[in-house]
């Protein structure tokens, strides 16, 4: 018996499964927070949740409404200042996993959350900006990118580089002095991209249940490479779905 599930639910479950128990995880609001809390309630009870508002080891009993929700402070091992979060915890590379999303991503996992179209001074769309992303991208040991696939967001060329993935390819991170490994996975509604070990170009390695390589290629604005036989992601288990839906219900 299979339960019905949405592409977003698959994406959230896929993100949650990428979080190993005991890891320290820098969490943003929205899907990353949902995924991290799902992981903590399923296979990773000792996942350490860190929010940029300054909560170390938050254990919220509901989904936080914002990265600075009171439930995070109430349940954290320690609440510290924002400068401390960035300087003592993120910058030295203590945090295992950082989650990022964005308006645009390119084939090397670079991300734009700043402006779309026009130029910087006179953009077509002004996005929120960098927030914590550039330094999360630089300093977390590994980065997970979570975004829905579409040609508008998986683009050949970013309108603005807000956060660096692999720059223009292998070796760029080292040359820039970025000490984390960079994006190890891009988790999408259609499947998962991973950097090619030789070139760091994002390559389709896994497909969501029912999705095809052709669908993925059509949703990407560059000629997407794929491994010969992408593995198929296991659909969400009953438990994963139940816990996920219960979590989502806490903020509705």
């Amino acid at each position, binding site marked *: 018996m299979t339960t019905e599930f949405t592409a977003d639910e698959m994406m959230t479950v896929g993100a949650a499964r990428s979080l190993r128990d005991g890891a320290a995880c820098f969490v943003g609001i929205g899907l990353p927070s949902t995924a991290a809390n799902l992981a903590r309630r399923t296979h990773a009870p000792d996942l350490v949740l860190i929010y940029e508002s300054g909560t170390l080891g938050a254990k919220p009993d509901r989904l936080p409404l914002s*990265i600075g929700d009171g439930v995070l402070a109430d349940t954290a091992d320690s609440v510290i200042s*924002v400068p401390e979060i960035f300087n003592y915890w993120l910058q030295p590379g203590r945090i295992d996993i950082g989650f990022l999303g964005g308006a645009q991503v390119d084939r090397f996992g670079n991300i734009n959350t700043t402006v779309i179209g026009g130029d910087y001074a006179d953009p077509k769309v002004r996005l929120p*900006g960098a927030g914590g992303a550039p330094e999360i991208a630089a300093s977390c040991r590994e980065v997970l990118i979570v975004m829905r696939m579409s040609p508008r967001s998986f683009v050949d060329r970013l309108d603005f580089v807000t956060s660096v993935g692999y720059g223009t390819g292998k070796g760029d991170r080292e040359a820039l002095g970025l000490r984390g490994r960079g994006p190890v996975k891009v988790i999408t509604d259609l499947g998962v991209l991973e950097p090619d070990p030789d070139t760091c170009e994002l390559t389709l390695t896994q497909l969501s249940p029912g999705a095809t390589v052709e669908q993925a290629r059509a949703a990407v604005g560059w000629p997407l490479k794929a491994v010969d036989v992408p593995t198929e992601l296991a659909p969400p288990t009953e438990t994963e779905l139940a816990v996920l839906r219960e979590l989502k219900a806490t903020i509705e």
Partner: protein
Amino acid sequence: MARILQLDEAIAELVHDGDAIALEGFTHLIPVAAGHEIIRQGRKDLTLIRMTPDIVYDQLIGAGCARKLVFSWGGNPGVGSLHRFRDAIQNSWPVPLEIEEHSHAGMANRYTAGASGLPFAVLRGYRGTDLPAQTDTIKPIECPFTGEQLTAVPALNPDVGIIHAQQADRAGNVQMWGITGVQKETVLAAKRSLVTVEEIVDELTPRPGAVVLPQWVVTAVAEVPGGAHPSYAQGYYERDNAYYQQWDPIGRDRERFADWLETVVEPERSAR
């Protein structure tokens, strides 16, 4: 010694046209009432500084109080864009808005340098991004010991730092708890400071995780219950999530925004 003032007195005295001001609060304890009072008093040409400009900055920008925004993430958290901010940047409405854009790590370090009496801070940040090309307050710096390339950002020292806290005592010592973001640094970095508080109490009871600002580094304290609404004040009230959602259609539309503006400005005017 901090002075205990009424909010309108404090804004009139501390915030001048053309000042660089920072109203800080990281989701929690956002000094919204102080922002509304600045709108009410019709301040102009302000440089607004904040890591996370959200609704109250959208309102200040829409009301034409600002000529510049220094920031690292501007949005209506959990809802979407700030439309008054977008309208100002994209259409110079109601007045042109210059921006100086950083990352959170950069802004946090700029406040830290400001609080520390240093002209700049050093961080691992921005490298490889397009931000340094747009923002001239981001420069490379070399470690004099290892030769490594890092990034320098200049200190922020606002003319006025404004925050909201849970409590002050009658001498003006301030205590806040829960998520306290970059508020201590904001007050310490600023030339003048205003702390609005939920209540003034006889004595501050020490609490786990509390941040205390002694009265001798605070210029003025104003008692403004509910002064952080629609954000929250831990131990006092919850976040008014509906307000954030309801702001979206108001912020999107110049006319609806103008109507909203009347409701902020008028009641006070007619009460005088």
